[in-house]
Structure formats: C-alpha cells, structure tokens
C-alpha cells in the first residue's frame, strides 16, 4: 500500500520570531526552519504503515525551493519518494493547499500509484488553520479522521482498514475506517526515529518529483500579521539557583500559603 504524508516548512516557533515589514510572514532571515512535531509523527506513522503493508511512503510539500530540506528530512527517516509542489506557500490558503495535494493524489493514481492513506499534521505550526486535512478529504470524497496520535493499517476481511486513536473529550477514542482515507495526526503517540548516516546518504540520492501548482491560488484571507506588544516586565528576581530557597520561602510566608 502507498502512503502519502504532507509536511510544511515552517519557522521554528519555539524561538522568538521577527515579522517581515509588510506583516505577511515571518522574516526568514532571523528564523530557523523545521517541520512541526505533529508532522514528524505523521512521517513516522506513514513509514510504519508502509512497512507493515509492504508498501511505500511518499512525502509531499508545497513550498519554495528551500522546502527540499524538509523533504530530505522525511526521506532520511524512511520515506522513499518525494513530491515538491514548488510555490510560495504564503500565497496559498488552506483550500488552495488542499486542492494542490488532491491534484497530486489524482495524478499519482492515474500513473498507477494510489495513495490509499494520506497523513497530515493536525495543524500547521505557522498559519494554524486546522483544516487542510478535512478540505483534502472533501476534495477526494474520502472519510477523514482528525487529531489522532496512533495510526495502524491492517487487512480485515480482505480490505485494508486504518485504525486511528487518540484522546477525545469523552475518553480515549478509536476510529476504524476502510481505505482510502485521510488522517491528521497530533504528536505524542509515536516516537519519530532519528535519521541514520546511511539514511541520510540514501535520502540524498532520491530524485524528487517537482511540479508546478495546478491552479493559481485564491489566496489567503490574511490582512496582516502583527506581534503583540511586549508588556513591561516588573518581575522581582528572588535569586539564582538553590541559594534562592530562603527568599522563596519568605515569599510563601508573606503570601500566607505556607500554613497548614
């Protein structure tokens, strides 16, 4: 079975960010770039599902030339093919991205490679739209499960079925859906493997399918991004390291939280 996993090149949001002058994006000159933790887990689950069914995992991104870095990272941990829709991701809204991914799925299917399972992250770390997976499923007319952290594929009565589970509001929930299907992944259910040196070497040799977007983007509904003004800090530093303990306990006494 063939699995497609979709990853996005995003600025590392764990470090401080600077925006471009026009407020349309994060200024790449001051940012490190990664794929999100959700997508790292989706890649791991894709590789596991592919190997469990004797299939292949293909990684896809829509992004600029630098996004090759994220494709290579996925190839280094077990994906065996990659598709790069070369475009400025900033210009593509979630509906545009879903349409482009759907076009790749259809073209690959026409060429005899049908991605019965498509995995995505639950939400992109930069735009956080929380919807590409569902829009993609809608485009393809497939069922979709979102926000799960464990995904396995097995044959049931001669049909491939995906079992997906994760925390829900009423307890730990399981879905069981016949393929083809779309699943969006939350981090935490699986440990993404580290790339090995041979893995990296192999990744370098894979030739990446490059394509142009199938249609002009309808674009973002974005007006602009801004950074909230930093509130003035009036923090009182009680000290450094364990030596601060007496000052801390003094504070507890002052606030009256120590008495039993």
């Amino acid at each position: 079975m063939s699995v497609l996993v979709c990853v996005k090149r995003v600025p590392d949001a764990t470090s401080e960010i600077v925006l471009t002058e026009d407020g349309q994006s994060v200024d790449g000159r001051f940012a490190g770039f990664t794929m999100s933790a959700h997508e790292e887990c989706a890649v791991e689950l894709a590789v596991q599902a592919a190997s469990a069914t004797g299939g292949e995992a293909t990684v896809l991104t829509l992004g600029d030339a630098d996004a090759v870095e994220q494709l290579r990272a996925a190839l280094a941990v077990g994906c065996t093919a990659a598709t790069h829709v070369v475009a400025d991701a900033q210009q593509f809204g979630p509906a545009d991205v879903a349409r482009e991914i759907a076009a790749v799925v259809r073209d690959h299917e026409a060429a005899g490679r049908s991605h019965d399972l498509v995995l995505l992250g639950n939400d992109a770390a930069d735009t956080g739209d929380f919807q590409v997976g569902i829009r993609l499923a809608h485009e393809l007319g497939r069922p979709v499960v979102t926000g799960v952290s464990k995904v396995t594929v097995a044959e049931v009565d001669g049909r491939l079925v995906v079992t997906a589970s994760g925390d829900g509001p009423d307890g730990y929930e399981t879905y069981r859906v016949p393929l083809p299907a779309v699943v969006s992944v939350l981090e935490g259910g699986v440990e993404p493997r580290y790339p090995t040196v041979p893995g990296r070497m192999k990744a370098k040799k894979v030739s990446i399918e490059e394509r142009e977007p199938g249609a002009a983007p309808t674009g973002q509904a974005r007006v602009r991004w801004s950074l909230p003004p930093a509130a003035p800090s009036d923090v009182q530093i009680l000290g450094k390291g364990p030596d601060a303990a007496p000052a801390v306990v003094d504070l507890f006494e002052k606030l009256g939280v120590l008495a039993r």
Partner: protein
Amino acid sequence: MILVLVEKTLDGAAVEVSLETLTFARSLSEAGGGVPVDAVVVGDVSDSLRAQLAAYGVRELHHLTGAGFEAFAGAAWASGIETVLATTRSVVVTAAGTPRGGEVLAHLAARSGAEMAANVISFDGLSPFVVRRQVVGGQAVEEMRLATRPTIFTVAGHAVEASPAATPGAAAVVEHAPDVAEADLVARVVSTEEPEPDLSGSLKSARVVVGAGRGAGGAEGFDDLLELADLLGAPLGVSRVVTSLGWRPHHEQVGQTGSRISPDLYIPCGISGAIQHWAGCSAAKAILAINTDPDAPMVTKATHAVIGDLHEVVPAINAEIRRRRAG
C-alpha cells in the same frame, strides 16, 4: 442569527469554553444590532443545560438527535448543522476552538465552500468582517478578513471570560432529527475508553498551584515538584507538552485547551509561558516562575522569579520549608 455549537461535559453541562463562545457571540450580536444567538446541541439536553443556555442569552436551542448522532462523526455533526441552517437564516456559525469544534466547523466550511478562521480572539469590524486570531503558535496575531457567508470561525479557549447575559433568552427547544448520509458516518468513533477521573475541579479552585513544563525533563522528573505540591497542599498543573508526551494526565493541563486557574500563587517550573498556557494562568494573583532562561515569557510576565534549574531549586525550597516547619 448567530449559531453556536455547544459541547457538553460527561455530566451533560455546557463546557466552559462553549459558554465563552456564547459570550463572544453575544458581543458580536450587540455590535450587529441585536441579531439573535442560537445554540446547537447534539444528543441529550437536560433541563439544567437548557437553563444554563437560557442564562447565556440563547434564543433557540436546536437539538440534534437520531441514529446518526449516537457516536461522534465530524461529518455527521456538520450535516446536522446544515439541517439547522436550512431552517434559519444564519450569518455566523461558531464553536469553541476545541478538537470537536474545529473539526466540525472545518467540515462545514469544506462542504459549503466557505472560509474558516481558527482560534479567533476578537473581532475588529463587521463589514467587512475582520477577526483577529492566533498564528505561529500564538506568538503572532493575524488579522483576517472573512468574506464568505455564513461566516465560520472557532473561538480560542479563554480568550474571553464566560459571563451570563443581562437578559436571559428563552432557549426554546427546536427539534431536528435528520437522516445522516452513510458517507458521513464512515469515520466515526467506534469505541471510547473510560476516561481518567477528571480531577481538574480542585485545580480550578486551588489557592496555590505548582506548575510543571518540559523543563521537568521526563515522566520521572516530577518527584521534587510533587513534594513541593504536597508541602503546600497544592495540586499540580502542567503544560500541554507534558500531557502530549504522556508524562502527566490531561486533567492536569492548564491553558487554552486545559483548565483556567485563578490561585493566589502559581509556581510554574520549567514552563516557557506560551500564549496558550498564559490563557489558563493569567488570572493568578502572584506568579513565581522557576526557569533557567531569564528571558522566558513566563519569567518576564511573572511577579517573582528564580533563575535556575528546577531540579536544583525545587529540592532546596522543599528542604527550606521542612527546616522552617521543624524549627
């Protein structure tokens, strides 16, 4: 009409973030000249839920029932909302930014070819309709113009405070029992395991909360923090990283997708202070941050801080408390 998808707790009450969304919807309604606010609820509706929604100003309570709604399926819930929309004129459909809320509204948006804004924190104007929402992990705010009708968006948890309406609504129940298409039921929950007991009640009302984040280092890194909590008679509250990685149970999570706490003292240890965490702890009267990074947002926003490794600082505090109690 503004239609709000209301989610329920296991006890059948409205979840707090849905009440916040109703409050948000009411402020939108006031800005828009008093368009009524309706609620849509899937499954059982108790008298107390109805009373709760009336207090929040709900005019009509659209009640979705039938075989298609017995187990959760995002597409089925979206089709149910479409049934409600077909009977009423709705300008806005909104829900809390929970996993269910986001999923159902994304289905609705995809089906109707509309845009959807996730994690809205405020609105700027009605025509054009401009919202502000969290992006880049909450570090930046996006101004977004929503052109399609009905306007579909989710409201970030704890972005507004839930408050009942000045004039209660009738919360008149309108029954809907639509047939759900087979295709919308393919991806549905087939089993739910008994959840861990929800002990978040004590967290929400605690006078002191000890917080723990990624800085704890692993599931085995909580001994000193739990001892401090014990010495102060405080519950533990944690960041989402901690629950996602399975180090601690979800009911201990503080933040936008966890509990909102309002203690006299919050002691976040090894928590950076991301906006989504801050949403859950900003009501604390005093905050003592313990962090290795003097520039961490939690440190700069705190009232007090100790700069250092929590695995050294917390045991020293515990020892000092024991020493003073003994003496």
